[in-house]
């Protein structure tokens, strides 16, 4: 884990971002800064608003109020193509792949090579390169996504976010369905991305993964900021307390029971 004090430019900054779904306040006054070459883990309970935040940044649904700045400039992310244009790549929790298209078509959807006479050969070899890089176990890139396992699909979604030189990659529970080796590869990948100077937002419920790669840990609780921790100056206990909102929670109780 890199230990450098991060002083590079702020890639993305959020101020007072709020989002309501009908009567549910999914996000309230959320703030977050991410710098180039930094991995920020976004954690929180189920329904804390993590995916909602990711979707705002991905242009899936705009925030109700609040400011999003990219490289210091205020931007309006009205649609996914806006986000892509600003160099934000996203691995969605629900993956957002087309079941009827094959792996190559999904990877290059919206960014095909040679639009009027598709360069199938280059796209296919690039697809294989990405899959090798992730050590993903995909038997063929010419079979429809529907015929892949959950983890294989996740690998495809991750591979897709790497195309097109993004500046910021958001991974919404990218390792939830992955095997041990593939999870390790994704963690390696995140470190490589950071070393290349990309900003990474990682959402995960797995404390091991988070502490393995994150520089900072931002906690959301019931749609609000509940502390931002520096990963090497905090403990799991502290983070879990921030997530659950109490010192006496089920996680610590289990831990105590086991240590007895």
């Amino acid at each position, binding site marked *: 884990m890199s230990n450098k004090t991060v002083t590079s430019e702020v890639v993305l900054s959020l101020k007072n971002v709020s989002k309501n779904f009908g009567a549910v306040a999914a996000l309230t006054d959320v703030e977050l800064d991410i710098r180039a070459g930094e991995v920020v883990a976004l954690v929180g309970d189920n329904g804390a608003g993590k995916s909602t935040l990711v979707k705002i940044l*991905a242009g*899936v649904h705009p925030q109700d109020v609040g400011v999003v700045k990219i490289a210091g400039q205020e931007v309006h992310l009205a*649609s*996914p*193509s806006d986000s*892509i244009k600003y160099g934000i790549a*996203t691995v*969605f929790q629900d993956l*957002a*792949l*087309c*079941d*009827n*298209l094959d792996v190559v*078509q999904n990877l*290059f*959807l*919206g*960014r*095909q090579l040679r*639009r*009027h*006479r*598709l360069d*199938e*050969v*280059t796209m*296919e*070899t690039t697809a*294989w390169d990405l899959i090798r890089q992730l050590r993903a*176990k*995909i*038997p*063929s*890139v*010419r*079979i*429809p996504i*529907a*015929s*892949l396992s959950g983890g294989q699909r996740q690998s495809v979604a991750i591979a897709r976010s790497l195309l097109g030189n993004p500046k910021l990659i958001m991974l919404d529970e990218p390792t939830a369905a992955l095997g041990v080796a593939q999870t390790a590869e994704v963690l390696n990948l995140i470190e490589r991305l950071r070393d290349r100077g990309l900003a990474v937002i990682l959402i995960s419920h797995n404390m091991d993964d988070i502490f393995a790669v994150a520089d900072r840990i931002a906690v959301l609780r019931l749609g609000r900021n509940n502390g931002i921790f520096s990963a090497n100056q905090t403990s799991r206990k502290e983070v879990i307390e921030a997530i659950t909102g109490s010192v006496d929670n089920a996680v610590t109780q289990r831990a105590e029971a086991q240590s007895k």
Partner: protein
Amino acid sequence: MTTQPTDLQDERLIINKGLGGAIKKTRNRIKSGDLGNLPVIIGLLIISTIFQILNRFFLSSANLSNLLMECSAVGVLALGIVLVLLVGEIDLSVGSMSGLSAAIFAVQFVRNGLPLVFCILLSIAAGAFIGWIYGQIYNRIGVPAFVITLAGLLGFLGLQLFVLGATGTINLPFESPLVQFGQQAYLGHTFSYILAISIALVRFGLGYYGATTRRKAGLSAPSLTSIALQSLFIAIALGSMAWYLNKSRGIGWMFVFFITLVVIMDYALRRTSWGNSVFAVGGNREAARRAGINVKGIYTSVFILCSTLGAIGGLLAAGRLAAAAQSSGTGDVNLNAIAAAVIGGTSLFGGRGSAYAAPLGMVVIAAISSGLTLMNLNSSIRYMVTGAIVLLAVSVDAVARRSRTSHGRA
């Protein structure tokens, strides 16, 4: 161990080599519900056999030659329907669109004496404009295409009657190029063979070029032998078809025109980013949007193309009939176009199908129609039989879909 191509290195991959392998692969694909064009081809064989037994004239050169001409105009409409079905929508108004286009053409060309090309372009532009309107209503207001085009079905039928005016039917002069094209233009014998061989050669050239580039990039590619065999098969199939049809009037230019449109559409659907986007929108609209695809633009382009093809089909029908009538594009025209797309294997659930569904399905419908006419059975029976076949086609689609889900090919 020899080095495997990049795409065949996973040890779980079932690799079928050579001709036997190709057959085995096809069999596996069909078993898992990826039926492709198979059901419609089998259906066509059954229909042909039955009608041939009932009436010896059915498979005669003259009847087949006529049948191909008959299916071209509505086939062009069916091609448009394939597109809207691919994005998971429907256009119920192509029939009215074709009738309106014929009426506009006839009024401008015959009554107002305007130049032919101008009249043709005007009709086509009307189609494109109407498709654009559909797209705007669909995207901005969010009315389902089913309802928009149902309104279009009635509205444009009314407009067609209005444009035609009191006389009702406008006859087109027999010497006009459009009527010649619809009734008299057949490929010369020599030319038909040259065309058949050229198609096979082009197929070979493209196949060979594709295989070499793939192999250079370290990917698997079909062997020279199998490409050559395929091309030879195409040459023989097309050549003997031309030979048989040439025993009577031969192959109509209108049919060649229809097939050319199909080939262009097939290329656009499979080899351009627009085509990929059409399939993506039909398969998972939200995923397509999140990939940055201009989903609304795709819908608009599809509606425009469908209505434009409707207008072109209307012109062909007018040429074939040598008239624009109040009944042009009415009756079963709409439903035949939709039925053809579905019978040809385009899924009603969106995201699955091919441009070739239009000619395949259309030939089935034209075959039924021709067979029943030969037996002196009237439209009552024809409607019932066509209805039953549509139901069968949709059932095959639904069953195949279930099978695909369980075999991971959805």
